[in-house]
């Protein structure tokens, strides 16, 4: 988006608009072995992440998002940041790193980056669960339950 949008109310960076208008890794992964969904339609944001993990490495990732421009852009950027990374490295992804990679977000949109982080953690929790490992001590609260989403408000 051009200068006009930057000067506008939302003040999205060019990078946010690039990831919104050309989102990377959109779609479903038929052979995903880790799927996570966070958010709440009532709040206007739902993110679903599909990961394909081989030998502890995220070899492919796709997402689907219902939400605003920032929700789409943070989903897109988060998938880019974890693609090719190990599970341990993906676990260390923070919402701040997503915000930084997008050259910032308006304060009212920071919750979208939190949701992106939680979506990945929710998928990783699913990965651990499928291996019979309790994810809570490793991942912590993944934000996958409706109760947890309350803190974004």
């Amino acid at each position: 988006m051009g200068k006009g949008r930057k000067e506008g109310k939302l003040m999205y960076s060019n990078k946010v608009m690039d990831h919104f208008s050309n989102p990377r890794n959109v779609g479903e992964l038929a052979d995903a072995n880790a799927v996570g969904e966070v958010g709440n339609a009532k709040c206007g944001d739902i993110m679903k992440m599909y990961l394909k993990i081989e030998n502890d490495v995220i070899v492919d990732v796709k997402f689907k998002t219902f939400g605003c421009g920032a929700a789409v852009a943070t989903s897109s950027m988060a998938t880019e940041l974890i693609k090719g990374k190990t599970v341990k490295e993906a676990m260390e992804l923070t919402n701040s790193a997503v915000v930084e990679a997008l050259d910032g977000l308006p304060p009212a949109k920071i919750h979208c980056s939190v949701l992106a982080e939680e979506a990945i953690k929710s998928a990783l929790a699913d990965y651990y669960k499928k291996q019979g490992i309790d994810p809570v001590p490793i991942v912590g609260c993944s934000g996958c339950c409706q109760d947890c989403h309350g803190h974004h408000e």
Partner: protein
Amino acid sequence: MLDRTVYVDNAATTKLDEAVLKDMLPYFTEIYGNPSSLHSTGVEALKVLTKAREDIAEALNCEAKEIYFTSGGTEADNWAVRGAAYARMKKGKHIITSAIEHHAVHHPLKILEKEGFEVTYLPVYENGIVRVEDVKRLIRDDTILVTIMLANNEIGTIQPIKEIAEITREKGILLHTDAVQAVGQIPVDIKDLNVDLMSFTAHKLYGPKGIGALFIRNGVVINRFMEGGAQERNRRAGTENIAGAVGFASAVKRAVASLEENSAKLTKMRDRLIKTVLTTIPYTRLNGDAEKRLPGNANFSIEYIEGESILLMLDLNKISASSGSACTSGSLDPSHVLLALGLSHEVAHGSLRISLGHNNTEEDIDYILEVLPKITKTLRNMSPLWEKVEKREN
């Protein structure tokens, strides 16, 4: 893609009419006096201001001395609500309003509630219109003010103000109407409406921003809103915006003169837009009454996608529209107007307001109808909610 922007956010503001601008220009540099000054430069400005007031009054059928200039619709709404409440608080502290008023009315009411006033918020039902019988039923002995908008800014619904006025007048209760969206869009005859207070503004009818007015019926006493000088017959202090008043008068006169022609043009375009969107894009609905709505207003809920994303995509395609989406306001709650219609939060998040103006053409509608389905498809393909719909249907 078009090589120009299709502006369909006329409910937010309109493009200043070039003829209006031309009328205003001499009053910035040539006739620049302060109307409160005694010298001839000031007297000249006062004459211009008086003429502007007379022109507006004539166009809307009231007396010139009943028009008080303000900085815009918000100030006029704030002044009407608070001024009437404080002036009448000895008689009672109950106020009736609708659930879909603009924040310029709701926010001062919230302040009054904190100060001990009691406010009843009327429902608007699925069609976005208040029922006269509800007003009648909810009036109490201590009701001092009813404030209900003439036309809604989001869903464009037109309220039965004349019928409500019959009740309030009989009971001796003040009636204020926020006519910011109505003046210039539908016929507004103040005497016929029979209201006590009416807010309206210039920039919604191809006039300048920063000038509005409050109609205060002769004999109605409300408290002053601005303290300072004795301008506006000692009721609203501050040096008058002469060029703005001239532009306001010019815009109102032009809007009223061309109302019938523009209304017919906008209604035709609006109806084609609504019909085509509803029949070609599945899971869409029109918000607000199909008939009793402003000629240029089309407000849709497009399910399974979010309003801000729709707007951004439209903007990337050079279409400027609006939404009642929460994300455009920085809050997580969608528009109070859409929720008042009984829409779920999920559906209310995917709202799109297209407000047409007299500069729009059939070609603009064609372009919107070309772009919107593509955007809807793109965003739905990205939406996990739509994924569930597709799985359910297959």
